[in-house]
Structures are given as C-alpha cells and as structure tokens.
C-alpha cells in the first residue's frame, strides 16, 4: 500500500501533471485530426522521452495512450468521421443524435461513460498488480517462450484480412531484430562489417520510419480536412448527458467488463471492441430497436467498453511484454527506451511502476473527460486545421529527435530506409504492426529458446508447458480467428 501511495505522490508532482496534460493534449488533438491517431502521437513522442525521468516519461506516454478513446468520439459524433479505429460504431447512434440536435448531450454522455470505463479498466489492472510477483514466479524460460510464441502467432490475428502477409512481415521483423552482435555467442549477424549495425537497429528510427513518417507523408499528399458543421443549440447538454450516463450504470459495467476482457486477451484488438459492445446493446437491451437510431445508450456502451479495454490490455503487456494492439506495441517500445522492461525485471526491480501507470490512467482519464466537457469549441476548431501546416513541423521534430538519440546521421539514414519500406507497405495496404511485433518479440523468443534448450536439452519437447502451451495456442488462435471473422 505504501508503494501505491508513493506512486500517487510521484504522479501528483507538478512536472508529472504537466506531462500528463501534454499527453492528454497530444492524444485528444491527434484523434480529432483527420488521418491522425494515437499510434502516430505515441510514435512522434518517443524520441523526446529519452531525456525525461521514467515517471515523467510515463506520465506523457501513458496519458496519451489512456485517453485515446475519449476524444475520438468528437469527430464520430459531430462529423461521422471515426477518430481512430475504436470509434467507428459510435457514429451509428452518436452522429444520429447530433443530427437530431442532441450533439452536446451525446458528447457529454460519451465523455462521462469514457471516464467510468477508463477507471474500470484501470481498476482491473490494479487488482492484478499485487499478484504479479507470484504470477511471474510460475513462468520460467519455457513458459515465457510459449507465451512469446503465442504473441508471435497473434501477428496473424492483428493483420486484418491479410493473415499470410502479416505472418511474412512478422518474420521480416524477426530477421531485422537479429541484426547485430549475437547475444550469447558474440558473433555479428547481418552487420556487413558495418560497426553501426553491430548494436542492431535502434527502436526509434524503426518506429519513426515505419509508422510516423509514412502517415505524415500520406497526410501531406491527401491534404484532407473534415468538413465543418454547425454547432448545436441545446440548453443543458452537459447535465443531460451526465444524467443519462448515470441512469445506465449497469450497462456501463457490463460493456466495461466486455472491453476489459477484449483488451486482456492479446490480439483481439482495439478495432472490434466498439462493434462487440454495439452488438451487446443491439441484442440484449430493452427497446433495442432504437439502438443505431440515435439512442444515447449506444454511445455510452461503446465508449465505456473502448476505454475499459486499455486497462485490460496493460495486464499481459506489463506481465509478459505481449502487445495486444498496435498502440500497446508502440507503448512497449517507449517503455524499453526509458529502461522499463515489462515482465520479471519490471515487477521485481521497479514494483512502483505498475502503480504509477495505474494512477496516471485514472487521473488522466478524469482530467480528460472533465476538460473535454468544457473544451468543445476548441476541438471544433482543431478539426479544421489543414495538415499541410502541421506535417512539415512534425517531420522536422521527428528528424531532429531521431538524430538526437545518438547525435548520429546513421539514425537518420536508418529512419529514411524504414520510411521507404513503411510507405511501400502502406501503399499496398499492409499493416506494419506485425513487423514491429516481430522486431520486438523475435530476439526475446530466440533468447528464451536458447535458455530453454540449455536448461532442458531434448527433453524440452516433452515439457508440459511446451505440449500444453502449443496445443492451447493453436486451438485458441484457430478457434478465435473463426469467431472473430464471423
């Protein structure tokens, strides 16, 4: 309990609050801009966190991540443009409410439900924290290997309809992850006698090149903005929305549980949460025929679920380093850059960090929801900013940040090479997340395999974790793929 309190004190420092507000601003602005999303926001922030103390870096990154599903309802509700992947289903009821002149009520209900859902997810994460040290003792190298292996198989599930391409990209990511001096033998691999390659590719140029730069280039080329609509003229929209939300607490808890579970199981992904919550409303609620026609319950249920999901997703991410979504994959990259390695090292060496993350999630969720209720006019304006003004500035920031990692042009060349690759993938509609997951998990899987073989030799093949783990992973992946794509 002392640790939880110390973590709260750390999070409430003025510097930490400042970075939390910065994260909230970045996240809320990015999801409100056409084409931008939280993933891009997280990626752009990465080069700058290496200069921050861990708690401040976490304040910036975790708040950006935690509130990503709150502000994204603005464009969904006002303009029928989904802000990121988790707010598509919000359009069905939210935009119809806006057209019925109830945009303010829809937004305020959305923000309130987001806060409750977000706190629910964070509490789920909190409940796990005290058990993490005991859980982690059960997992030796073999058990961890099976978990990482399941993470690698999830690559296929995260690849949308391109399963085979996703697995292929995951393999390429794994190969890229092997560049450098081999961990246990000291042999250089794929270094082409270049001393810069001996340490392998640094995460920052990889993430910037694969994610941030292609998105910015594509935004600059398409040069899109959201069309403006008029503001509504409701009398007490905030009060109406909040009241409606609290009248539907049971529904919020139900969909929060759904969201948390979807987040908890790696690979189910952000994109389906809103649709599962919508389907729940459509099939279980009284007067369900109204759902999809401007019913506030449709908005509330979805936003509670999408926000609760983030807390659930952090459990496997913190325990085993398994990213359940692209945002979590980038968040884990950020953690590794500030020296926080999920898993045993995190839980045993820095037991305060999970509590710090919990408090940042709770506080940033509350701040965001309250602030957004009062800041609607500002976001109305942000949505009409033309990307052509913003993109060159962001590109410059990324380039300088990447160079500054080691004051080396090598990092810029590496980023440019990955940008070309990232653009090529984007042009062919191939998701880049499997590549990043392969890059992150491949070297870990290799190391765990080596350790497991050294410990058990050939008897590794009969190890209960291997037999049970492999069968379970294949069964879950195959069955799950079928369920999800139904």
């Amino acid at each position, binding site marked *: 309990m002392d640790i939880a309190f110390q973590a709260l004190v750390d999070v409430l420092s003025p510097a930490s609050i400042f970075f939390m507000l910065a994260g909230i601003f970045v996240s809320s602005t990015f999801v409100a801009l056409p084409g931008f999303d939280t993933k891009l926001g997280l990626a752009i922030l990465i080069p700058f966190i*290496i*200069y921050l103390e*861990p708690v401040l870096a976490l304040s910036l990154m975790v708040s950006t991540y935690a509130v990503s599903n709150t502000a994204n309802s603005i464009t969904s509700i006002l303009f029928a443009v989904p802000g990121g992947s988790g707010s598509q289903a919000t359009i069905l009821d939210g935009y119809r409410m806006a057209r019925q002149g109830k945009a303010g009520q829809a937004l305020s209900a959305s923000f309130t439900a987001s806060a409750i859902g977000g706190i629910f997810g964070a509490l789920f994460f909190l409940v796990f924290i005290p058990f993490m040290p005991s859980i*982690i*003792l059960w997992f*030796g*190298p073999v058990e961890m290997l099976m978990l990482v292996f399941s993470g690698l198989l999830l690559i296929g599930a995260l690849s949308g309809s391109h399963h085979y391409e996703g697995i292929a990209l995951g393999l390429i990511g794994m190969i890229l992850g092997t560049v450098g*001096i081999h*961990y*246990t*033998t*000291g042999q*250089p691999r794929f270094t082409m*006698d270049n*001393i*810069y390659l*001996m*340490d392998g590719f*640094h995460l920052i140029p990889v993430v910037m090149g694969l994610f941030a730069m292609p998105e910015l280039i594509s935004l600059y080329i398409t040069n899109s903005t959201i069309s403006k609509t008029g503001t509504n003229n409701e009398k007490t929209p905030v009060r109406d929305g909040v009241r409606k939300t609290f009248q539907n607490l049971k529904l919020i808890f139900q969909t929060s549980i759904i969201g948390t579970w979807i987040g908890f199981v790696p690979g189910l992904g952000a994109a389906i949460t809103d649709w599962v919550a919508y389907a729940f409303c459509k099939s279980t609620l009284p007067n369900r025929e109204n759902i999809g026609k401007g019913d506030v319950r449709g908005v509330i249920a979805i936003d509670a679920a999408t926000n609760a999901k983030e807390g659930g997703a952090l459990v496997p991410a913190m325990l085993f380093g398994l990213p359940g979504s692209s945002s979590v994959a980038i968040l884990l990259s950020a953690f590794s*850059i*500030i*020296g926080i*390695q999920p898993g*045993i*090292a995190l839980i*045993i*060496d820095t037991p305060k960090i999970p509590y710090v993350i919990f408090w940042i999630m709770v506080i940033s969720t509350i701040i965001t929801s309250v602030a957004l209720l009062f800041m609607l006019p500002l976001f109305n304006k942000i949505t009409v900013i033309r990307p052509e003004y913003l993109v060159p500035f962001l590109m410059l920031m990324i380039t300088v940040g990447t160079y500054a*990692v*080691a*004051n*080396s042009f*090598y990092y810029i060349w590496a980023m440019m090479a990955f940008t070309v690759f990232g653009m090529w993938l984007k042009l062919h509609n191939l998701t880049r997340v499997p590549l990043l997951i392969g890059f992150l998990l491949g070297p870990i899987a290799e*190391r*765990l395999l*080596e*350790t497991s073989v*050294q*410990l058990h030799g050939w008897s590794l093949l009969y190890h209960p974790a291997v037999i049970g783990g492999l069968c379970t992973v294949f069964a879950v992946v195959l069955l799950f793929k079928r369920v999800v794509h139904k």
Partner: protein
Amino acid sequence: MKFISILLALVLGFSTAQASTVEDFYKGNTVTVIIRTNADGGSNDTYGRLLARYIGKHIPGNPNVIVQNMPGGGGLIAANYTQHRAKKDGTEFTLFAQGAVIEQRKKTNGVDYDVQSWNLIGSMAGGSSAYVVHKDSPINNIADIFSAQEVKVSASGPGSGSYTTSALLSKMGANIKFILGYDKTSTKVLAVLRKDVDMTNGTYSSIMKRVQKNPDMKLIGILGNIDENPQVDRLENYVTPENQTVFDLMTVSVTAGSPFALPPGVPSERVQAIRDAFKATLKDADFLAEAKKLKRPIAYTSPEKMEKLYQTVLSASDEDMAKVE
C-alpha cells in the same frame, strides 16, 4: 643580484603564464564528455552524466560541460572516435568501454585505436561481483563452488561483466555450466529462486539490493573492492601463482569499471588539469551525495594503475590470452 632577480622574475612569470594559460583556455570554453552508450539511463550513461554535472567546477576556468552519447559497436565507435577524430585540445574526453583493452589485444574486427596512446584520466567506479545461491543450496562459500561436481550459473552472454567473473571461477578450476540468455540481474536471480540454476552473480550493489529484499537468497562470495560483509568468502583468497595471470587478465574490467580518457596529443598541462579535476570531483561532497542517491558506488582508480593493468593485458602472451578466451 640583478641577474638573479631577473631570472626569478622570468621563472615566476613563466609559471604564472602557464597556469593562466590552462585557466584562460578553459574559461568560457565547452568541454564535452563522450559516453559510449545510448542516453538510456544505464550504468555508463548515469556515471558519465553524473561526472559531467560536477567536473566543470573543478577544471581551472570552470568551463561549461556537456554530454554527447556516442553508442555503437559495443563502444567501438566512441573508442575509434577518441583515437582519430576527437579534438586534441583537451575539450573532449571519453567514457570508454571497460573491455576496450581486451578487444584491442584480441585484435577484434573494427578496432582502430590504441589505448596506450590515449591520455588516461582515471576510473570513477571499481567493479565488483557478488555470488549468490538459493538458501537451500549446499554451496555456502567459494570453496564449495570449487568442490561441487557441477554448478549451473545463469548469465547473459560472453562479454558481459558477470559472465567474465563467473568464467573466472571456471578458469580457476570450478566446473561451471553456463545457462545463457538471462538479460537482466532480475531474470538471473529469478532463475536461482526457481532453482532452474544453482548460482548467479552480478555487481555487488545490484545483487545485494535483491539479497536484502529476499530471504530465499544466500550470499556466498565477493570479488573486488568491497568493505562490507567481511565474513563472506572472497575470490581473491583462491588466487595462486599458477592462476595469477588469468586472474589479472580477467579482472581488468572489475578494477577499472568506469574508465575515462583524453585523446592522444593533448597538451600535457591540460591533461594534468583534467586528471586533477577528475580526482577532485570524486571527493566533492555534493557529487558523492548525488551518487549515493543514484545508488552508484564511487571508487577512484588512478591513471597510473589503469596504465599498468592495460600493460598487463597488452603484453600477455598468446598462450595466456588463449587461457582466458
């Protein structure tokens, strides 16, 4: 008498001019500390930045001191830079890799430097190693390691400090079986707690942090300059004339754990000024307080001692080198 006065005036004037030259040179100038790793908050980065925050006030003229991280090739890039491209006017010095001298002796691919040509400044942290087992283990001291049939040790990989200090046990006669791939002290310790392995080791401070927290762990041996726990067995007690060379070669990184050097060709009075400032910084009360807060032990090794150690490595015969590889 007049001649003597003139001579005295000349000598005094000359020495004052020389003193003011160093001070004048550094006054308003900027000194760069090159760190051979990323700005990752790891041991090297922390030590380098800690020194940079305090050394400026001990250098004559109080120059501004900044840090530049130069990672790559396990320290090769920073070492090659120090040899060929670093400014030779005393405004750049490097925190280089502990194993730089070993790599030079082994003629590792990519080595394009000669540590003997550098102007060594000193080391600010002596390395140390602590050996731990599970409390149920029959191993109670270092003698038990030597008499055990086989001791499984969790380690990261060859080249790491902890690997070397366990490999040293093997070279001194113990039957060590390495289980590699444990990338952090916590994962190595967990392997001991799970009884996947018999023993692990790491720097004294990082191991002790865990021993104090976990009653299931037992400290059985120490290597290096540690005053605490005098009752615990020390590896130094097992050095014999036969294994002395192996011991010396394999503990170079333990003795000079955080080494700094100026490039070759720096004027000698500036080298001396930086060496003096380095030594004075390591006694600075504020500096020591911050080091304590950061949990980074400080131990000074003189440039003369480092030079002697490096000489031992560089003059080692191929036969001796083969013993430690």
